[in-house]
Each structure stands twice: as C-alpha cells, then as structure tokens.
C-alpha cells in the first residue's frame, strides 16, 4: 500500500462529512448572538433607538461591523425577549436601555474578558496539551 492509496482511503471516508449551508446558518445565528452581547449590550448603557445604534455602529466602526439595520432590530428584539433590555416609546421612536438583568450580564461578560489575557490563556492551554 502506498501513501497515495492511504490518502485516497482517508478522502473517501471523509465524504461522510460535508460542511454545508445548514452549518453556515447555525454559525450566523451564533455570531449574531455574540455580536449583540459584545457590542450592543455595552452601547445600551445609554438609552438609544435602533436607528441611533445603526448610525453609531456605522460611523464608529466603519469597516469593522457589517450588520444591516434589519439585523440590528432582530437582535434588539431578541435581547428584549431575553429581558436583557427594556424599551419605551419617545415621540414615535422606540428606545432601548439595559435592564437590571442586562447590567448583570454585561458585568459578568466584562469580568470574563478581563480575567486572563487571551495570550496567557492560550499558553496555559498549549502547555496542558504538550504534556499529553
């Protein structure tokens, strides 16, 4: 048996797994949730409308964030359903702000990100596996 024979065998077996559109969709959903936790929550320490958020994201992070307005509203809706934010109407405009629950979550998230710099965390992880 030669190497190419081996590769061929592996390849034929790997056909059992296929990365498809279905998987991409799940990732998209996960990313949106991450985005609303990482970016939207901190911005909602101040009361803002969906339009204001979109504008802020667009001007501040041009090129870094590529979510359209519709997606922002979908995320706001989800955050509201989870009771992380509350809304009220101001002159025909719905405005959102963190709820108590949202403040708690944000504090928790901030703590997590600041606990260990990722580089050290990574080093520790690698050291752990190096001993296997």
């Amino acid at each position: 048996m030669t190497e190419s024979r081996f590769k061929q065998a592996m390849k034929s077996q790997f056909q059992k797994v296929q990365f498809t559109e279905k998987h991409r969709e799940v990732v998209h959903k996960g990313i949106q949730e991450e985005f609303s936790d990482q970016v939207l929550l901190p911005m909602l320490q101040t009361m803002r409308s969906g339009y204001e958020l979109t504008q802020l994201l667009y001007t501040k992070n041009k090129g870094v964030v590529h979510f359209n307005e519709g997606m922002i509203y979908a995320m706001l809706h989800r955050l509201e359903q989870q009771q992380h934010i509350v809304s009220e109407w101001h002159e025909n405009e719905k405005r959102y702000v963190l709820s108590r629950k949202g403040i708690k979550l944000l504090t928790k998230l901030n703590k997590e990100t600041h606990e260990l710099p990722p580089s050290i965390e990574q080093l520790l992880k690698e050291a752990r596996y190096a001993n296997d």
Partner: protein
Amino acid sequence: MEEVISISGLSRNQLIEELMTDYGQEVLQLVYTYIHDVALAEDLTQEIFIKCYKALSTYQGNASLKTWLWRIAINHSKDYLKSWYKKNVDVTETNVLAQTLETSDLLEQVVKNSEDEALFDLVMALPVKYRELIYFYYFEEYSVQEIACLLSLNKNTVKTRLHKARSLLQKTLGGNPFDGITF
C-alpha cells in the same frame, strides 16, 4: 501555512464567511478525525467558527490565520474529548484503544468492510496523540516542523510518535501502510 492575512479593515463577520468558505470542509474533517461521529463533529465545527468570531478581536496576527484556526479547532475537539471521557469512561483512553486494537473482532471487521473504511477505522482506533499525527503528516502532508508548531510539541516528540503510530498500524495490518515513506 505561510499566508498571513491582515484583518484590519476587514469585518469580523466577513472574515468568518471567508474562513467558512475556504476551510469549513477541512475543519470538519479535522474535527471528525478527533471525534468519530458525524453529528457531533458538525456541532463542534459550528461552535469552532463561533468561537473564532469571539476570539478574532484578540487575534494578534503572530500566527497565520489558518494555523490560528487549526489550533482553535484542535483545542476545541480535545476539550470535548476530555470532558467526554471524564464523564463516560473510567479507564484512560489509551487503554481502551489499545484493547480495541488487539481485539480480533476488529480484524474480522477489517476483512468484512471495504478496504478504505477498514483503514480509516484503524486510524480512528489509534489513541488521539498518534491519530492526529497520522492525519497531519500523511493526509495533510505537513512537515514535522509544522506539526510540532501546530501542536506545540517538540520536533523529536513528533518523530517518536509518528514512528510509534506507524508501528501500531503495521502490527494490526501485518504490513506497513506507508511503504517507503520516511521522515
């Protein structure tokens, strides 16, 4: 694995899209090598890309993006294996798999199954530390140096494990599946 992609100016969102297009299938195969279960491998692969999105803000650009992605995928798979074994298996993994390799049932199955599947199953039956080396060295055709870097191992450790992995396979197959190939 030399390419270095600058992420400045590129949206994280867009970058994940590109990573999924370029490497989705490869990551899934890599995860499947660690976790021999289609549905689970799919779930873990999705989690890996979401994890990447989270981690992109802290990506330093000191490793190539592909290496960085591979490390996340490898660590995520191994973390899963660890928690799984902790929960479900009392003996160490090496013992379980060593037993599997010695079981004559498996050999009988090898005869029954198609040759491809049999070989694949044999590789899958190797302990993780040998299995991953077979995958990277013989399937992805990475150099010993590249593997050492990717897995944070010493070069000599990689060589020793490759040697051991081959002799394990050789013992079960009654022949060397990688005739004439050395490193």
